[in-house]
């Protein structure tokens, strides 16, 4: 295995040398091996992950939460078989190969995504890790017979942040249709973050907490900016090409398939929303609890 551990001074309870260098020969543009820049947060996360009982040998390809033909006619079984059975599977397999024998092995997928993003200076496993997460999340973003309109507090927050539900849907479709290349469109919740990268607002206020529509290129997802994703649509061509060839058709089809009603469980967006609280109330609790617990452990 080419991946190496860079020696760092460790204090007593830390068994894990919290440093990474890229494997040689995976990505030429990563240049010479370098140490990951460790933020306090990442160190904490690393310590936490070094604890006992957290080791999983490798990631598995999770099946979508419905049969592969369940989203027809918006998404054909044929497309789904390739998208889940080939693309998603390949991301999982390649990720497992890349992390085997490195200190990333045994970490949660969310941690790997955030750590290998490395502030935009991707480490080699980033693309595969993020694509595994994105596809897991994408399948959860749809359901047979989904669609409709949210209600309750989510609807209020959508109205507050986008003007109206219809305006949100329009803006979301526009974002998805205008991605210049492969990527993803997201509805995300942004707590106390500035609109610039992952800048933290030094004077946080309630006004900073809002829903945003964001686009991300290739494998990037809003976890790396510390946003909470709520919905996504895959706008890589493989997501729609067999069925439609033209992206706008699937966007028209998929957006109404989003189970907005489930998102209504995301309450208290306006109020006190700690990461842990958000995780508990999120539809995607399973994903978020892993992600959020690490950061709220202090």
């Amino acid at each position, binding site marked *: 295995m080419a991946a190496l551990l860079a020696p760092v001074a460790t204090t007593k309870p830390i068994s894990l040398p919290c440093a990474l260098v890229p494997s040689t020969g995976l990505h030429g543009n990563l240049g010479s091996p370098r140490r990951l820049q460790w933020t306090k947060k990442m160190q904490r996360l690393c310590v936490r992950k070094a604890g006992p009982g957290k080791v999983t040998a490798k990631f598995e390809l999770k099946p979508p939460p419905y049969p592969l033909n369940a989203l027809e006619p918006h998404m054909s079984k044929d497309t789904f078989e390739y998208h889940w059975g080939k*693309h998603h599977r390949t991301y999982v397999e390649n990720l497992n190969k890349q992390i085997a024998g490195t200190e990333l092995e045994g970490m949660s997928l969310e941690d790997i995504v955030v750590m290998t993003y490395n502030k935009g200076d991707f480490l080699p496993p980033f693309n595969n890790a993020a694509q595994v997460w994105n596809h897991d999340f994408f399948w959860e973003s749809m359901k047979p017979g989904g669609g409709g309109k949210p209600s309750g507090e989510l609807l209020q927050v959508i109205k507050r942040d986008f003007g109206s539900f219809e305006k949100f849907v329009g803006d979301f479709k526009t974002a998805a249709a205008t991605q210049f290349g*492969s990527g993803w469109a997201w509805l995300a919740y942004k707590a106390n973050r500035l609109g610039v990268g992952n800048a933290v607002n030094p004077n946080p206020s309630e006004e900073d907490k809002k829903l945003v529509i964001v686009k991300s*290129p290739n494998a990037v997802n809003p976890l790396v900016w510390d946003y909470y994703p709520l919905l996504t649509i895959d706008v890589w061509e493989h997501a729609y090409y067999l069925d439609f*060839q*033209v992206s706008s058709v699937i966007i028209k089809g998929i957006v109404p398939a989003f189970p907005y009603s489930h998102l209504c469980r995301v309450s208290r967006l306006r109020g006190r929303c700690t990461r842990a609280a958000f995780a508990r109330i999120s539809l995607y609790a399973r994903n978020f609890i892993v992600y959020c617990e690490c950061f709220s452990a202090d």
Partner: protein
Amino acid sequence: MALGRLSRKALLGLGGNGGRLGIGLGLVRGFETVTLPDLPYDYGALEPAISAEIMLLHHQKHHQAYVSNYNKALEQLQDAISKGDVSSVVKLQSAIKFNGGGHINHSVFWKNLAPVQEGGGEPPKRSLGWAIDTQFGSLESIVVKMNTEGAALQGSGWVWLALDKEGTKLSIETTANQDPLVTKGATLVPLLGIDVWEHAYYLQYKNVKPDYLKNIWKVVNWKYASEVFEKESP
């Protein structure tokens, strides 16, 4: 003309590749729009390497969309310039780069391919053949290197065999999305570009991009690349 006619060079904004490569241009309302060039062969002529269905969609839908959206952006640009609306001018840059780049890249790409009976896949001879042998050892090593870069390219983009016209140096480059080669260096000229967007192969090769990359060499038009090389070498 009241608004003044913008020069083609200024409007293309992406280097002189457009004119040199014979991209169709038409004059409308004081600025020159671009038009979809004809393919120099039939849609089915590259089979079995590339299916007729892919070629048709790729040319009539994708390339046409870059042409239409580029012209639309030009129109909006002229409007914004005439109104002195600087923020709109700036905002239009990304659409111009993407769609203008898409037009430039695909215009080259069609010429980079040829049916087998018209010389597709025949190795380069003369000066380009020598330059490749001298600088890369063999044609095979270029094929391997470009295929590796193409397979590793994350998302959408292009792999190029480039000529640096200031020193006859050949290099292999990749560009993201529809960025044209000139964004990698002002003196770089595309000899051969391979489209590695999924739309270029998905209907036929699905997720198996390496097979597409393996087969495309059977229809590469090295004669065109050689002509460009000879014209652009100092």
